[in-house]
């Protein structure tokens, strides 16, 4: 044996030994390793922290144990960078040997995580990223989502615009990228199914925020309504520009909740009265939501948001699966079927998990009132994502 092959052999032996230790510890029901792969730097930092807080809040409420096993966290900053996503997720799976991965916010990163989870069989719970594909073509028995698909709030808004608001012609406008396309197509589907017609689909290259030319187009076309998908800085600027052009008085502006979530301070008066749809809202006033909000505010000295709820529910889903298999996450089919059968008691209202493992949930219609997105009604009851391309 040459020195080189002998060292290779040694590495293989060591790996085998480590692997058997890992298996051993499973059987011993030691700590359950949860890999939190979330943005801890960059634009989405606050979202990542809210998700982690929500997750830990639920675990702490259970005395630090889920399914009888103590929880140990391994944290990775995904930087919302799809280029680093595969490396980061493989570090968690191969180096840290985590049992469960929770993440993330950015859809591009989440897609890379779903691919890695599908290959390794590690349980993945997505606590935000809305890319339709995660529970569409990428769906797998070990991949779950505690948040939403881009299609869901958009489709519900389309129905509301046509049926409840009686709009006939609408124009959509979005950044030209995957999430935006999914959102406006969801709106178009809901709107046209309910008898409306999308006459024009406008695009702005991401992350360009010069909207004036397209606002003039909208003014000239005089539709009955506009559906817009933007987030963060883009959402603030679009809503303000829309109002400054005087269009808010003549043509109502609709959007998914992200158009007005976490941005109301900056949008000020220009967003008042806007209608949006999302799976969470301010002023739900259910005992479950109130209890959650009080506990969250007490633990973190912060008001919870939709991201905290999604993190909290990710922990709930994990708990349901683990309890059913008495902490042995190796029993994948039993773990999955327990979650599929469960009714998850979320602060947003109870929801279940569909066949593709995306929440089947109520989508709320909300109205901007001061600094809050106040619930108006349920826009769509128990709405399930069509899960196109999923073969589960």
């Amino acid at each position, binding site marked *: 044996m040459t020195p080189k092959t002998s060292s290779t052999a040694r590495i293989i032996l060591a790996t085998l030994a480590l692997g058997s230790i890992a298996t051993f510890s499973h059987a011993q029901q030691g700590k359950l390793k949860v890999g939190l792969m979330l943005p801890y730097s*960059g634009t989405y930092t606050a979202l990542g922290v809210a998700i982690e807080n929500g997750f830990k809040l639920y675990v702490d409420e259970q005395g630090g144990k889920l399914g009888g096993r103590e929880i140990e966290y391994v944290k990775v900053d995904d930087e919302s960078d799809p280029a680093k996503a595969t490396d980061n997720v493989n570090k968690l799976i191969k180096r840290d040997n985590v049992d469960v991965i929770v993440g993330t916010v950015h859809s591009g990163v989440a897609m890379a995580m779903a691919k890695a989870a599908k290959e390794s069989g590690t349980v993945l719970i997505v606590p935000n990223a809305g890319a339709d594909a995660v529970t569409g073509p990428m769906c797998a028995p070990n991949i779950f989502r505690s948040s939403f698909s881009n299609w869901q709030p958009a489709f519900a808004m389309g129905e509301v615009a046509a049926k409840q608001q009686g709009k006939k012609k609408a124009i959509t406008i979005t950044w030209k990228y995957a999430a935006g396309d999914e959102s406006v197509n969801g709106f178009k589907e809901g709107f046209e199914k309910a008898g409306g017609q999308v006459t024009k689909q406008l695009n702005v290259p991401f992350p360009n925020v010069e909207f004036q030319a397209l606002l003039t*187009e909208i*003014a*000239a076309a005089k539709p009955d309504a506009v559906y817009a998908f933007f987030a963060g800085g883009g959402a603030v600027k679009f809503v303000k520009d829309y109002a400054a052009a005087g269009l808010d008085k003549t043509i109502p502006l609709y959007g998914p909740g992200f158009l007005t979530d976490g941005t109301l301070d900056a949008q*000020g008066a220009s967003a008042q009265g806007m209608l949006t749809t999302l799976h969470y809202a301010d002023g739900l006033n259910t005992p479950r939501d109130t209890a959650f909000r009080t506990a969250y505010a007490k633990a973190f000295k912060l008001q919870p948001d939709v991201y905290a709820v999604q993190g909290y529910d990710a922990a709930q889903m994990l708990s349901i699966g683990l309890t059913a298999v008495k902490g042995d996450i190796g029993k994948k089919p039993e773990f999955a079927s327990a979650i599929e059968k469960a009714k998850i008691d979320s602060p947003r209202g109870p929801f279940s998990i569909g066949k593709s493992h995306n929440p089947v949930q109520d989508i709320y219609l909300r109205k901007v009132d001061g600094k809050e997105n106040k619930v108006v009604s349920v826009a769509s009851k128990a709405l399930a994502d069509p899960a196109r391309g999923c073969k589960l």
Partner: protein
Amino acid sequence: MDLGTFLVQCLNAVQYGLLLFLVASGLTLIFGIMGVINLAHGSFYMLGAYMAFALTPLFGGNFIVMLVAGVVLAAAFGYLLEWAFFSYLYQRDHLQQVLMTYGLILVFEEVRSILVGNDVHGVKVPDWLDGSFALGSLMSYPWYRLFASAACIVLAAALYVVVNRTRLGMMIRAGASNRDMVRGLGIDIRKLYRIVFAAGVALAALAGMIAAPMSSVYPGMGGSVLIICFVVVVIGGIGSITGALVASLLVGFVDTFGKVLFAELSGMGVYVLMALVLIWRPEGLMGRKI
């Protein structure tokens, strides 16, 4: 497209172009006269926007005073920055300049994150400009956008006069053509460069302050404006203020009408324009022959 819509779109194009000019003029000054590729220029734009956010409460409703204070602060900051970092770059090659100015972007972004956080902020439009006027039956146009355009035109004129009609301007132009000759004539070129750099930073920051009420203030806002500014500088000809003005307006028109007429390809329009100009005149519209 009827005539009314067409005219409103022209107004949009001019207004966007003028704002671009304000940022790009500072870049072309620094790039053309001192030969420094300053990737951090977008950060100065961001600095201005965040100053507007931070200073507005201090100055109450007095927007003009706030602008003046911001410009003075930005110029002082630019002066210091030139002394501490950029003065070492003139003799180095472009790669080292790119490395250092890119490093500065990272530093500025991190400092912003620590000081102000990562949230999106709005800046209030001053009361006396808050409101819109009707443009035909079509839509209304905010007064503030008109004010921004007017401010840009005034600044463009002032810049033209300073560069072409004053002694300082003469020294700046001479320094751009032949650094050693200017020094030989007994002019303190280092001080001159320091002033030009400070002016460039002040122009970018002023653009950021004027844009803040229209565009809101958010992380990474400098990066997007930087690229389009380099496009403007390259089209206009490096170092030419007049070229930057013409190029800004061209880019404004191409971008606006590209978005409206060829929605699917709108992201490309400006770059196609740049490519065409470079094929026709590699030195840019008003640049010196290379």
